[in-house]
């Protein structure tokens, strides 16, 4: 290969100089802490003694505790019922929230894609839930869902759907539903925007051609709109799902100390800071990271394969 010309050399040198500070900060704030967290998961570290943490292998994940009298039991994260219920809570949350957010987002996007009077106002209004800080949303809805003075109970009782007030955030049966509802309320605008962007890339002539051919609105949606907007929707869904798996804020503020809504992030944090099981919490954090990483890599692989498989 020919030696690089002066210009190419100058630019490549500059490129690395420009990248270095950003990469350094990223390594310091993300890579190093991640590695430390993983390391802590293999030690007996506690909040008060990082430096004296000793390597203990897989003990936090799985170990056999021998009682010495021929009996023993398995201990560790992988056999911890609370961990697995946290995993299940998170998965449940993700599946339901993301599905409903996509459906509602699609509806809103379809509405916003039509031209009608006051569309700009509606679009602005729809953005409001997204603009409100998560913590504030949790508090607002916590107030509206209040068992005694909340207006949700008030409305539902007035229209006869409820006969007695429900403790939405405190009751085990409804806590998760409450959390899901608030998350869906807050995140649907984001999904709606992404889907709307996908919808707006579909050229108008396609719809006109369909109309001329006499295709009804439902069939137009199913056979024309949906296939064309699917790529954008899929990307949005994956991004949202990865976000939902990491959920913390809403759960912590709306339904603290609730086993039904404890997600993996909440579980990890509780162990890290509330129960002084720092190493255990680090192990849980590591597992959550692995789950997210595998899904992300799987997705990248799938889209790459799709690109190379469909290359014509």
């Amino acid at each position: 290969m020919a030696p690089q010309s002066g210009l190419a050399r100058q630019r490549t040198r500059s490129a690395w100089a420009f990248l270095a500070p950003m990469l350094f900060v990223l390594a310091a704030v993300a890579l190093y802490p991640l590695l430390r967290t993983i390391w802590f998961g293999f030690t007996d570290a506690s909040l008060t003694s990082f430096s004296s943490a000793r390597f203990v292998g897989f003990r936090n994940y799985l170990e056999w505790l021998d009682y010495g009298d021929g009996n023993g039991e398995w201990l560790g994260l992988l056999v911890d019922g609370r961990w697995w219920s946290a995993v299940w809570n998170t998965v449940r949350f993700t599946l339901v929230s993301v599905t409903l957010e996509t459906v509602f987002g699609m509806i809103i996007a379809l509405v916003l894609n039509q031209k009608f009077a006051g569309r700009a106002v509606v679009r602005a209004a729809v953005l409001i839930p997204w603009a409100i800080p998560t913590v504030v949303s949790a508090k607002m809805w916590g107030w509206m869902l209040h068992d005694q003075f909340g207006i949700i109970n008030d409305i539902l009782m007035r229209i006869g759907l409820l006969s007695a007030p429900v403790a939405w955030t405190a009751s085990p049966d409804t806590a998760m539903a409450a959390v899901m509802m608030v998350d869906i309320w807050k995140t649907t605008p984001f999904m709606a925007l992404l889907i709307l962007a996908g919808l707006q890339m579909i050229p108008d002539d396609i719809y006109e051609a369909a109309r001329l051919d006499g295709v009804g609105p439902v069939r137009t949606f199913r056979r024309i709109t949906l296939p064309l907007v699917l790529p954008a929707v899929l990307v949005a869904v994956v991004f949202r799902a990865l976000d939902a798996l990491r959920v913390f804020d809403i759960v912590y503020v709306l339904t603290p100390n609730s086993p039904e809504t404890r997600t993996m992030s909440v579980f990890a944090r509780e162990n890290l800071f509330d129960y002084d099981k720092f190493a255990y919490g680090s192990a849980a954090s590591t597992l959550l990271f692995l789950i997210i990483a595998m899904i992300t890599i799987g997705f990248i692989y799938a889209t790459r394969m799709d690109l190379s498989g469909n290359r014509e």
Partner: protein
Amino acid sequence: MTARSYLRKGGFYLLVGVIVLQAVFPFYYAILTSLESGQAIFDVNYLPHVIDLSNYRAAFANGVFGHQILNSVFVATLVVVLSMLLAVTASYALARVPFKGRALLLLTVLSVSMFPQIAVLSGLFEVIRMMGLFNSLWSLIFSYMIFTLPFTVWVLTTFMRKLPSEIEEAAIMDGAPPLVIIRRIFLPLLWPAMVTTGLLAFIHAWNEFLFALTFLSTDGQRTVPVAIALISGRSEFEIPWGNIMAASVIVTLPLVVLVLVFQRKIVSGLTAGAVKG
């Protein structure tokens, strides 16, 4: 118009109404509640019948809340400024200089934004303690880079790619080194994109909860989301909802105004970032 199309149109507008109502009502109700105090809060009502600003006065009474708002402003602003500084030059390199491993690097930077915050929490906790930044606002300014950097780099790279290369070549012919090209030629053209990105990063930093909860321990240092989450009454059963709503409104109103004013830019920034190029 036929009856059928009246029905259709009516149904459509009903849907629109429902969409707007569900979006706007909760915030409206929060404002309503914040304007009531004492016993009035516990009477359920949907329309305002008093305007009582005592909750708002109480919020600022001891000065702590005001200070916390300033904390949030300080942290969010600095995080945005620092991220932009680092991201502008980095995205020039990623968008306009072909070098080996460029695509992989961009993917790696982007993947950092996929990290669950909890996964770096314990490691960061140690780092921050080591640097002596515990309970300092700088702990947040540092740790928030984990989501603002990948985001700003990604969005700015996308916008940089679209700048015409002939203008850059003209600048090269004029003898401008890369830093001058960024500063004098690209930055002025990227200005709108930077406003959008900065805005979105600001909102994200403003809303952040987990790190702020973990790295700050005294009220005076806390930022707004944590402050609001921790508002408590004198006993377990006396949650001061009026105060909470007032604080929430104070904190949210500027954000809502910002978002409404800049909604076009925000929408284009969000979709540019997420709809992969």
